[in-house]
C-alpha cells in the first residue's frame, strides 16, 4: 500500500471512529432482552437456563439462554419487527407460561438503539383447568406447608417470650439468617456447595450460634442492667433493622432459589396436585415439632424450661440455673428459626427481608396459640398457615397476608390469652 493510500485509510478510519463513537453508544446494539421470573405465590423466582430464539420472517436471527437472575439478551442486526419464541421444552419442571398461547410473540418491534424488553409471564404449571376440589386440596396442602414453616419459627419466639418476657422482633432475622446460611453452604460459589439436605445442618448450627451470641452478647447483659422489657423490645427492633440491612449488603436485594429441588413437578395424590418439597417440609416439620414436644415434656432441660416460663423466681429457688435455661432456649429458638427459614426459602425464595415478611404471621400464630406456650405456637402456626392460603379462594392473592393479620386482630379482641394460654391480666 502506498504511503498516500495508507494516509487516506488512516484518516478515513479516524473520522469513522470519531463520527461513530457517539452514534455507537446511541445507535449500535439493538437487542431484545428481558428477565424470566416465575411468580410463585407471592414470590418471584428467576428462572435460568431457558432457551429463547429470535427470528425474522422465518429466519432465525439468534438464540440465547437466560443467565443468573433469569436475565437474557439477544442482539439483533437493527430496528425492525421480530418474532421472539420461548422454547417451553427448556423450562424446568413445574414451570409453565401462565398463558400457554404466548409461547411466541409475533410482533416485537425494536426501534433504533433500543433494548426491547419482552415479558414472558411464568407461573406454576398447574393453572390450566383445575377443579374446585383440586384447588381447595392444593391450597390446603400449601397452607399446611406455610403453617409448618410458621410453626417451626414461632415455637422459638414463644419459648423465648415464656422464659424472658421479651417479644423479640429480631426473631425475623433468625429466620432469614438460616435461609441465607443454607444458601451459602449449598449454592454460593464461595461456599462448599454441599447438597441442600446436607447444607441445612450447618445452617441450623449458624442459627443456634446466633441465638447463643444474642443471649450472651446482648440480652443477658441487658437483664443484668435491669433494662425494662419495653426498652428491650425497642432494642430488638434496632437489632432487627441492623441485621436485616447487613444481610441486604452481603446477600443483595435479588430473590434467589436453592438450585436443588427448584422447579419440581407436582405429583398427584388423591387427585390433588402437590409439590414433593411441600410434603417434605410438612413431614420434617412435624417430626421436629414432635421432638421439641418430647424435649419439653421428658428432658430435664425441657422441664426446667417450662418451670422457668411458669415462674422464674420459683424455678431459681428450687435450684434451676435460670441463666443456663434461658441460654438453651435462645439456642433452640435460633436453630428452629433457621430450619423454618430454610424451608421458607426452599418453598418460596430466599430474600433479605423474607423473615420480616413472615414475622407478622409468626406473631399471629404465637398470639393465636397463646403467647409463651410452645404447643400453642405450633397449633397457631398451622391455623394461620391454612387460613392464609385458603383465603385466596375468596380474597385476591395479594391480600392473603392481610387476612392472617386480621385473624391476629380478631383473636386479640375475642380471646386475648390465645387458644392454649392461661388466663392472665394482659390489659
Amino acid at each position, binding site marked *: 500500500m502506498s504511503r498516500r493510500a495508507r494516509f487516506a485509510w488512516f484518516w478515513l478510519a479516524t473520522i469513522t471512529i470519531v463520527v461513530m463513537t457517539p452514534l455507537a453508544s446511541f445507535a449500535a446494539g439493538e437487542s431484545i432482552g428481558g428477565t424470566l421470573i416465575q411468580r410463585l405465590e407471592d414470590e418471584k423466582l428467576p428462572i435460568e437456563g431457558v432457551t429463547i430464539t429470535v427470528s425474522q420472517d422465518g429466519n432465525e436471527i439468534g438464540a440465547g439462554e437466560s443467565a443468573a437472575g433469569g436475565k437474557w439478551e439477544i442482539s439483533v442486526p437493527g430496528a425492525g419487527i421480530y418474532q421472539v419464541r420461548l422454547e417451553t421444552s427448556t423450562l424446568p419442571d413445574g414451570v409453565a407460561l401462565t398463558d400457554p398461547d404466548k409461547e411466541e410473540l409475533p410482533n416485537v418491534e425494536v426501534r433504533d438503539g433500543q433494548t426491547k424488553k419482552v415479558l414472558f409471564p411464568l407461573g406454576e404449571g398447574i393453572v390450566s383447568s383445575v377443579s374446585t376440589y383440586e384447588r381447595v386440596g392444593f391450597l390446603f396442602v400449601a397452607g399446611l406447608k406455610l403453617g409448618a414453616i410458621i410453626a417451626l419459627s414461632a415455637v422459638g419466639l414463644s419459648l423465648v417470650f415464656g422464659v424472658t418476657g421479651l417479644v423479640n422482633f429480631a426473631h425475623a432475622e433468625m429466620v432469614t439468617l438460616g435461609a441465607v446460611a443454607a444458601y451459602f453452604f449449598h449454592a454460593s460459589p464461595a461456599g462448599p456447595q454441599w447438597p441442600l439436605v446436607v447444607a441445612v445442618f450447618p445452617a441450623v448450627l449458624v442459627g443456634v450460634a446466633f441465638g447463643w451470641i444474642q443471649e450472651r452478647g446482648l440480652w443477658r447483659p441487658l437483664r443484668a442492667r435491669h433494662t425494662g422489657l*419495653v426498652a428491650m*423490645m425497642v432494642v430488638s427492633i*434496632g*437489632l432487627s433493622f441492623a441485621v436485616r440491612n447487613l444481610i441486604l*449488603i452481603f446477600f443483595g436485594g435479588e430473590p434467589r432459589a436453592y438450585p436443588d429441588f427448584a422447579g419440581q413437578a407436582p405429583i398427584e395424590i388423591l387427585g390433588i396436585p402437590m409439590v414433593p418439597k411441600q410434603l417434605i417440609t410438612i413431614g420434617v416439620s412435624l417430626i421436629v415439632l414432635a421432638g421439641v414436644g418430647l424435649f419439653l415434656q421428658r428432658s430435664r432441660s425441657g422441664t426446667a424450661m417450662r418451670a422457668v416460663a411458669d415462674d422464674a423466681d420459683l424455678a431459681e429457688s428450687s435450684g434451676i440455673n435460670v441463666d443456663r435455661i434461658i441460654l438453651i432456649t435462645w439456642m433452640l429458638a435460633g436453630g428452629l428459626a433457621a430450619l423454618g427459614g430454610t424451608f421458607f426459602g426452599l418453598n418460596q425464595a430466599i430474600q433479605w427481608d423474607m423473615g420480616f415478611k413472615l414475622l407478622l404471621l409468626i406473631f399471629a400464630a404465637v398470639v393465636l396459640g397463646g*403467647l409463651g406456650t410452645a404447643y400453642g405456637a405450633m397449633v397457631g402456626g398451622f391455623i394461620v398457615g391454612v387460613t392464609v392460603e385458603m383465603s385466596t379462594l375468596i380474597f*385476591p392473592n395479594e*391480600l392473603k397476608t392481610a387476612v392472617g393479620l*386480621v385473624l391476629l386482630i380478631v383473636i*386479640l379482641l375475642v380471646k386475648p390469652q390465645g387458644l392454649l394460654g392461661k388466663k392472665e391480666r394482659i390489659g
Partner: protein
Amino acid sequence: MDWGSVLIDGLLSTIGPITAAYAISAIGLNLQFGYAGLLNFGHVAFMLVGAYGTAITVNLGGPLWLGIIVGILAAALLGLLIGLPTLRLRADYLAITTIAVAEVIRLLVRSSWAQPLTNGVFGIQGFADSFFDLNPFAPAELYGFGTFVVTGRKLWVMLVGWTLVVLLTLLVRRLIKSPWGRVLKAIREDEDATIALGKNVFAYKLQALMIGGAIAGIAGILLAVEQRNVTPDAYLPKITFILYVIVILGGAGTILGPIVGAVVFQFLFFTIDALMVNAQANIGWVGDFLTPAAAGQIKLVLVGVGMMVLMIFRPQGILGNKEEALIDER
C-alpha cells in the same frame, strides 16, 4: 474530600421539608408514646391515611383544603378504630396489634380491590397543584447565599412545614401543661393509681392516640404534598421505627424532643450520606468497594445500631430526664 460541601449538603437536607414532616409525625408519636406510654408501632398508618384522605378527596374533585380536613379527620378516626379494641391490651400486645393494623391498611390500599379509589401500587399524583399555586416565591428561582440555596418551590414547602412544626409544638405544650396532660403522664407512671383516683384511663389513652394520630396525618399530608405523590409502599413499617429513633433520640416525653430528634437524626443521616457520596467520588479505594446502593444500606444499619445503643445507654435521649424516662417495667 470536600468537607465544606459535605456539611452544606447535610445542612440543606436537614432544614428541608422532609425533616419538618418527620418532626411533625414525631410530635404525634411523642404524645402517644412519650406522654401516654402507648407503644404504638403502627404510627406510619396514620401518615398513610392522612395522605390518602387528602389525595383521594382531591382526586374525586374536591378542593385541597377539604382534602386536608378529610385527611386529618380520617387519621383521627383511625386512632379511634385502632384504640377502641386494643388500648386495653398490655404494651407488647398493643405493639403487635398496631404494627399488624398498619400493614393490613397498606396491603389493602395497594390491593386490586382498592384500585378504583387508591390507584393501587401506582399511587395518586397531581393533588397538590393548588398548594403550589399559592407559592409566593418564584418556583424555579434559587434563594439563599453562596452554595447554600434552595428553590422557591422547596422554600414554600419548608416555610409551611416548619410553621406547622412550631404551631403543633405549641399545641402539644398547651395540652401537656393542662390538667389533661397531667393525667396522661400519671397514666404513664402508674396506671393503677390513676384508675384508683377515678380517672377514665381508657378515654384518656384513646384521646391521646387520636390526637397523636391526627398530628401524624398532618405529617403524612405534608410529605405527600412535598413529593406530589402518594404510593402505598412509601409507608413501610421502617418509617415507624425511624420515628421511634427520632423520638427517643430527642427525648421521649419532652416538648422539644421531637424537633431536636428530627433535626439531629436527619443531620446525621444526610451528612453520613453526603460523606459517603463524597468519599466514593474522591477517594479511590472507597469508591472501589462502596457502591451507592451499599452506602444507602450502611446508613440503615447505622440507624438500627443507633437505636440499640441509644435505648441501652441513654434511653432519655438528648433532652430527657432520667427519672421521668418511661419504659422501665412492663
